[in-house]
């Protein structure tokens, strides 16, 4: 599955309990839209680490990497490149 679809599916299952209609747009900020609560980002991190077998450093944990679907896709893509 494409990364963006996998992310959407995870977000819908995990934060919308199956309701895909409520997903934010690809560039919408999770924080601004109130989509993820203060600790929800850690669930996203665990998902990415497990699914894509990449290690995420504490310094990576900034909104620039995690705060929208597109930012997540870009982050995962670049991480996988560097890990390879």
């Amino acid at each position: 599955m494409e990364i963006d679809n996998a992310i959407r599916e995870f977000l819908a299952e995990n934060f919308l309990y199956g309701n895909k209609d409520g997903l934010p747009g690809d560039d919408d900020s999770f924080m601004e839209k109130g989509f993820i609560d203060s600790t929800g980002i850690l669930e996203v991190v665990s998902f990415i680490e497990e699914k894509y077998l990449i290690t995420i450093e504490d310094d990576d944990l900034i909104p620039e990497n995690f705060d929208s679907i597109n930012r997540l896709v870009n982050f995962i893509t670049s991480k996988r490149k560097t890990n390879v």
Partner: protein
Amino acid sequence: MCGIAGICTLEGSKGISAESILRMAGALNHRGPDETGIFLDDSIGLGHTRLSIIDLSGGSQPIHNEDETLWIIFNGEIFNYLELKEGLIEREHRFYTSSDTEVILHLFEDNGSSCLSMLNGQFALAIWNSVSKELFLARDRMGIRPLHYVVHDHRLIFASEIKSIFMNEEVPRKIDPIAIDQIFTFWTTLPGRTVFQGIQELSPGHFLVARDGAITIRKYWDIPFSQPGEQLDWPVERICGEIQDLLDDAIRIRLRADVPVGCYLSGGLDSSGITSLVKNKFNNRLRTFGIRFEQGEFDESKYQDCMIDALKSEHTDLRATNDTIGATFPDVVWHCEKPLLRTAPVPLFMLSKAVRDNGFKVVLTGEGADEVFGGYNIFRETLVRKFWARQPSSRLRPLLIGKLYPYIFNDPRLKNTLQAFFAKGMEQTEDPVYSHLIRWENTSRAKVFFSDDLAAAIGAYSGYEEMKANLPESFDRWDSLSKAQFLEMQVFMSNYLLSSQGDRVAMAHSLEIRLPYLDYRIIEFMGRVPPVLKIRGLKEKDLLKKVFKGVLPEVILNRPKHPYRAPIQQSLLNPTTHGSADFLSTESLGAAGLFDGKKVEKLLNKIRKTNHATEVEGMALAGVLSTQLVFRQFGTFFTCDLPHDVVPTVFVDRRKAA
């Protein structure tokens, strides 16, 4: 402390049966197991259940004035009744009891509704004028005691608790979608509303008059805050001296009772301060009661033990385990009569039973200090976010947020995202409800579980807009701390803390709580104190700490603040508490139609699988389960039968036909 109930005919001449009033009183038996009193005439029926605390032998209600034209039923205490009585005796009022209730009646006789401003107490009352056929209902300033009413079929039906109103089978028992939306935003309904359509709560500081078929409601008191420029310019020492004097007197008059008075002691600053003052100044043989938790993150035993050592008090503690919290939750919801997004009321419900089992009817508690003296993190958070917003690019200012919430910032991985979370809406500093937006928006995330039908019934309704429309006229001119304090007191304290963690869970076991920090003289004084003195830098309740310097052990004065909370998913999804599973089944959810069964199922599976719930998921779990409980308990499970074999000890029948 008691329960009150009544039916007043607004139009027509349909009589009121003794049985209907007896049924209403019977539903309030837990509030007043000692006596039951009934008054009937052709226009009204009044019912009273009594928990005898003052004038044990003579204070039976209803109580009348000299010529028996005025009749009162009363729930609560007037702590300054002795002082008020002196003036009434000088004005040649004759008393036939030594109760505080009779004092109110004579005061009303002389002053009408303005008598309310003279009362220092916690109360809900009804006074019937049998000549003018006028009914007067009133509630204390902060809403410590409850009072609900409904107008149905040309009758005004009122009672301390909603279940008593519902003993009249013809009153519809329907969940109000707007109320659910409010609870899933503010943790409670906004003032005046209950979770049932048509059932109103008389707001704190208000009175109601029913006469000639018309009902009028008036506010007689509001939480007072002075605007900058009008605040006190006294030196700190003088302010602390005044607080000390007020607090001493608030405690002194709250120890008035013809039964022994105990104290709640958690180990926090507020209850420790009250118990120490009681011990040092009033009662050397102190009896204290406290909660201990099975799970360490909720427990304050270390500080509680420190205070027991310091006070040498005879102490009883209640151990709240996850199993017992889960098993007791349905009973608590029944008494609170509204959905709960928290389990924190449960241990307090269990504690009140332990206190009663030890023979006590009255305790002093430390509630209210955080609101009045500026103790909550949400107040400090507001100040920090405003400070940060003045220089949004600062790298140092956001670090202050981490200092407020060390227990959620202790994961270094979360630092950046948490800062981003608190930065959200940071620039909206002019929004009148700025201080509470993060909390309310976070809570609102639990609305994702609403069914399509419920969401449609709520439509475009906005709780924020309703709240903003009802703010005091001078609100805009207040400083940001005063604004935050007001919102916290008006919404959270009056409707949740004093109810679901106060009156309801104590009175469930016939226990009266008394709250010295909410003496209106203290609230009015603190409303004039400049905010900078309440929270110094990041030091919360700084003035109260100064007052307690030398009174309390240093370890209590300097301890980190520990919010009172109780475990949610560990209690409610506990294998030993099977009950909740039935209410959360897809069938049960579908029958109620309020929540999306599939989403709730995913939530439950997720929590069970990970053994963890986020803040919002915990609130959603408690909220969905308790709403389901309310739906059932007040729906198909509800019975209008007389719940106890209630025999009135006082029965006054003035019906013409009688």
